[in-house]
């Protein structure tokens, strides 16, 4: 045999295996409105950048007639490639091969690429499309999941881990995405749940569709398991690429700087915010008025929208923004918003991304449901996350900063590096209305016209405390700034903190209120 025939033989073998589950299975996949695993990888990565490993791996099942079956690549594709010219490790489960079920060799391929990603300090992207554990392989498939979860945990905070749910992801399998940094879902395609509709029905008698139980919208809006929601797979891939452009490759790097851009003209920050602290506005407009090119890439847009988290650039550098949203629930902190913000803050801190906090909140949300669901321990997460973060931390108090909310939103007391306040800022234990009722209870009760007296006392309190100057007199605020100076002050603060050196006391790890 000449070398040429060996090459031809290799090509033939590759072509055969690359078809995955074969034409019929692919046809089914397409009918479900899904791309194949290979198409997905090629659509996401830079053109001609994908290199596959372990193409010829076969399954190891010996029972239930599996020994005679061929499962190409054992139902998963792994490899490396680039996005915007920067390397990533990737795996994609192939639903056309035994429903993408996870057996021993399938898991071994995934853990191989995970180990590679961690060793090389490059981001890991996992595309999930699997019916679950391969029952025929018994405990070996459980072992496989365990090995994956363990590596997800090891890699957490070292390399970015991105999970893309493009099909079913049920039972134990859901815990790999749950352990990663960002989860992407697509309408009508993503399905995530611990127990499916049939089990729910047989055990509980509750009728629910797959979509209602664990569809894309549910995870983006209700459970908070998903960070990005898209209508189509292609839109989802665009979101992943945008995210990759904002984050560093590992915790040892900084995110790549882009060319600095000014915010779009015509977006005037002082025209967005009403002076009356009880009238809402869209805080995203404020963010867009200060970021490069007025671009803001929101994370978890649909979950707990009373707080906004996401990425933007300032003078070309990535910044993580955390901002109260007066437009939704008056911008209060509650269980979900605390959880959402705390996780994002920890992400930024782990990956050297400075945090800018824009503050306008009346405090925590009152209610029996909140108290009983544990707003104390969940609310504590945001305090913990800000306190332990050592990246540059900048706060701008736009209007209200009342009570526990003031402390929680990256106050000086949690070691904020810079605290700016607009002249509209009100920093106080509570709003004038609540404070007047307590401080002047007696005067109001004994007055001839209590309502008139109440209004008078509210005004009195407002005059005295509903401003930034009491806090500024204590040095809790560094500077009271004009709204139009917001961007320039943040830019300067970022420049000054470029070589910030701060650390936590030596410890194995803290015990955050999980």
């Amino acid at each position, binding site marked *: 045999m000449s070398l040429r025939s060996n090459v031809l033989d290799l090509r033939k073998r590759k072509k055969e295996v690359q078809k995955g589950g074969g034409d019929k299975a692919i046809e089914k996949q397409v009918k479900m409105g899904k791309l194949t695993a290979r198409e997905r990888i090629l659509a996401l990565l830079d053109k001609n950048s994908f290199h596959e490993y372990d193409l010829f791996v076969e399954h190891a099942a010996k029972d239930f007639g599996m020994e005679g079956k061929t499962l190409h690549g054992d139902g998963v594709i792994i490899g490396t490639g680039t996005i915007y010219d920067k390397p990533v490790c990737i795996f994609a489960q192939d639903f056309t091969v035994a429903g993408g079920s996870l057996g021993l060799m399938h898991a071994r391929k995934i853990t191989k690429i995970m180990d590679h990603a961690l060793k090389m300090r490059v981001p890991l992207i996992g595309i999930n499309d699997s019916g679950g554990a391969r029952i025929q392989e018994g405990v070996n498939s459980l072992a496989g999941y365990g090995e994956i979860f363990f590596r997800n945990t090891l890699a957490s905070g070292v390399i970015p881990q991105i999970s893309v749910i493009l099909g079913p992801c049920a039972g134990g399998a859901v815990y790999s995405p749950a352990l990663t940094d960002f989860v992407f879902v697509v309408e009508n395609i993503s399905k995530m749940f611990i127990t499916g509709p049939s089990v729910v029905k047989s055990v509980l*008698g509750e009728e629910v569709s797959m979509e209602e139980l664990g569809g894309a919208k549910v995870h983006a809006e209700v459970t908070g398991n998903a960070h990005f929601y898209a209508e189509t797979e292609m839109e989802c891939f665009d979101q992943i690429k945008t995210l990759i452009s904002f984050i560093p490759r590992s915790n040892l790097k900084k995110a790549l700087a882009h060319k600095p851009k000014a915010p779009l003209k015509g977006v005037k920050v002082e025209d967005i915010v009403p002076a009356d602290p009880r009238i809402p506005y869209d805080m995203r407009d404020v963010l867009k008025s200060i970021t490069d090119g007025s671009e803001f890439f929101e994370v978890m847009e649909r979950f707990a929208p009373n707080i906004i988290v996401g990425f933007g650039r300032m003078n070309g550098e990535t910044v993580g923004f955390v901002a109260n949203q007066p437009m939704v629930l008056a911008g209060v902190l509650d269980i979900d918003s605390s959880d959402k913000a705390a996780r994002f803050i920890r992400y930024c801190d782990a990956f050297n991304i400075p945090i800018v906090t824009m503050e306008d909140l009346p405090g925590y949300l009152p209610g029996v449901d909140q108290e009983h669901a544990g707003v104390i321990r969940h609310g504590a997460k945001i305090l913990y996350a800000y306190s332990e973060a050592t990246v540059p931390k900048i706060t701008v108090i736009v209007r209200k900063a009342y009570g526990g909310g003031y402390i929680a939103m990256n106050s000086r007391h949690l070691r904020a590096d810079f605290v700016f306040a607009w002249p509209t800022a009100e920093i106080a234990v509570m709003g004038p209305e609540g404070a007047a009722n307590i401080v002047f209870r007696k005067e109001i009760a004994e007055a001839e016209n209590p309502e008139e007296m109440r209004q008078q006392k509210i005004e009195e309190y407002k005059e005295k405390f509903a401003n930034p100057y009491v806090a500024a007199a204590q040095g809790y605020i560094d500077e009271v700034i004009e709204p139009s100076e917001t961007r320039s002050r943040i830019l300067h603060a970022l420049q000054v903190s470029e070589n910030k050196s701060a650390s936590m006391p030596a410890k194995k790890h803290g015990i955050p209120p999980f």
Partner: protein
Amino acid sequence: MAEEKELKNLVIQGAVYKTTFTKRFENRVKYVTPDPNELYSFIPGTIIDIFIKTKQKVKEGETLLLLEAMKMENQVRMPFDGEIVKIHVKKGEVIPNRHLMIEIKPTK
């Protein structure tokens, strides 16, 4: 922006804020003080046996019924000495969580 959506009032510490609500906030369950004379299911399941009748006097700790859930037989017991007022479930019935099973009253 503010004009497009219908704004609602949210009162926090005496101040009225104009804002929008989330679905989750609007659908939150109103708190009701539990009535000790009403026994609710604590897990969804099947009533596999009922040992008592209406108006029967029952001592504290006696088993009233068996609720099978997650392959376990849960004994529902009398929380205090008292009497069965009304039984709301039947043998073999599949019930959801937080379903009223039995009304009782204490002996005076």
